[in-house]
């Protein structure tokens, strides 16, 4: 159904949607409730193991054919913070970045790898009004750039600030983010390139359920090494990428204010109008068109008829 959605028609539908909201009350979004896939896969990231070697970044760059970076991946100066203490973010040239943190009371730094967390109930997906996103049974959140209209709603909806756009092309915007190596690896049951490259087993690929068990076990066996929490088990409704840390997660750049409720719930009401818009817009538009042309015609008729009446 969506393969034929052109940017033009979608823009029109967006317009109609805006009009329709004036007249109609939103209903709950049945078509947007997302199935949870019990056997979906994930990655367990153990921050206590990561040494900041950036092998994962280099592997991602090669796998996704991303542009060559300014500095080689062996350069550790990228860990130095920006002017206002900002950390590096993912963008259209890098779908994953590793950042360094120096938590108080720890005699060594910790490194945190950032990429799309492949949420169980992705906010990017549920906020996208043209349905450019898909959550695959394997766990990946992927997108179809041909459907994307470049409205950037997903950028705002994502609680982890992940989706980015290729700004260089304003007329053909293209969303870009980590796709869990879906096309080249995950689809065939293989781990993503970053996981394969990690020398420390800081990244562990497997079924999400197993990874949670393994995470719990590490916490149980080495309680002094970990805080008693797996980040991503419940955050934002649960994510496919899960994290273990030796310090409270907010000290290594994680947003710990994210609610456990899927972000979906908060946008559901708004989204209720989307399927409605998609189904009724042709009729509505035809209606407007007819009204407009009839009126014109009416005026013409009047003009014609005036002399007759006199």
């Amino acid at each position, binding site marked *: 159904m969506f393969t034929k959605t052109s940017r033009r028609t979608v823009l029109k539908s967006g317009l109609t949607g805006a009009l329709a909201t004036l007249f109609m009350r939103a209903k709950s979004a049945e078509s947007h409730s997302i199935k949870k896939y019990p*056997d*979906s*896969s994930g990655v367990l990231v153990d921050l206590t*193991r990561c*040494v900041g*070697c950036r092998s994962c970044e*280099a*592997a991602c*760059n*090669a796998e996704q054919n991303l542009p*060559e*970076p300014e*500095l*080689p*991946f*062996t*350069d*550790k100066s990228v860990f130095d913070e920006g002017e206002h203490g900002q950390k590096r973010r993912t963008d259209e040239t890098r779908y994953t970045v590793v950042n360094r943190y120096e938590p108080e009371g720890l005699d*060594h730094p910790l490194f945190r790898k950032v990429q799309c967390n492949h949420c169980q109930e992705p906010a990017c997906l549920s906020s996208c009004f043209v349905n450019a996103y898909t959550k695959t049974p*394997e766990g990946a959140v992927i997108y179809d750039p041909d459907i994307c209209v470049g409205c950037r709603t997903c950028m705002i909806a994502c609680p982890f600030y992940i989706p980015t756009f290729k700004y260089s092309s304003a007329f053909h915007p293209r969303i870009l983010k980590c796709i869990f190596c879906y096309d080249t690896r995950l689809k065939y*049951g*293989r*781990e993503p390139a970053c996981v*394969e490259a*990690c*020398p*420390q*087993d800081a990244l*562990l*690929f*497997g*079924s999400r*359920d*197993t*990874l949670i*068990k*393994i995470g719990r*076990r*590490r916490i149980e*066996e080495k309680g002094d090494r970990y805080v008693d929490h797996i980040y991503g088990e419940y955050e934002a409704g649960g994510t496919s990428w899960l994290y273990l840390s030796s310090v409270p997660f907010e000290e290594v750049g994680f947003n710990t204010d994210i609610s456990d409720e899927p972000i979906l719930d908060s946008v559901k009401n708004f989204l209720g109008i989307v399927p409605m818009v998609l189904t009724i817009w042709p009729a509505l538009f035809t209606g407007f068109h007819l009204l407009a042309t009839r009126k014109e015609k009416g005026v013409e008729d009047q003009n014609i008829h005036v002399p007759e009446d006199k």
Partner: protein
Amino acid sequence: MKALWKIVKVFFPVIMICYCVFPVKGMCGQEPPESVVLSYLHKLYKPVHFDHQVHTEMYDCCSCHHHTTGDGTAKAGCKKCHSDSAALENVSCSSCHQFKKTVEITQSVPVADPLYHIDKPDLKGALHLQCLGCHQTEDGPTGCQECHEFTPAGRTRFALKNEELQRRD
């Protein structure tokens, strides 16, 4: 790129076999190898010549071979079952730690015994966690390129210009 992968796929079993050829015979009583060549990351890095002898002079067998050399175990986790386990025939790292660890997507528990060894690192992870972990506490070299010299493919992967000198680690 695709061709490279094919080559890797073809060579992978060969490399594995080469790696397993070091029959580090069990027990401290037997003659340990002087050096071990680790070449399974050959695509990106030149082989690492691990000086086994230097390490055996400084540490007990069981500090690295957790419980397979018949001289007890230094690991609290292993002690529960292996405090007096006998020496194994093959004590090479790769005899327990597989080259690659990918938990099958649909598999809920990765091994038959659900209680122990469910979280065993793959070969690359085992070697790095063991070596680097110890090097950090014992002041050994810890920079990636102090052990791993890049191949041309490795330099390309890490976006190092070929004329450029290898950067600090």
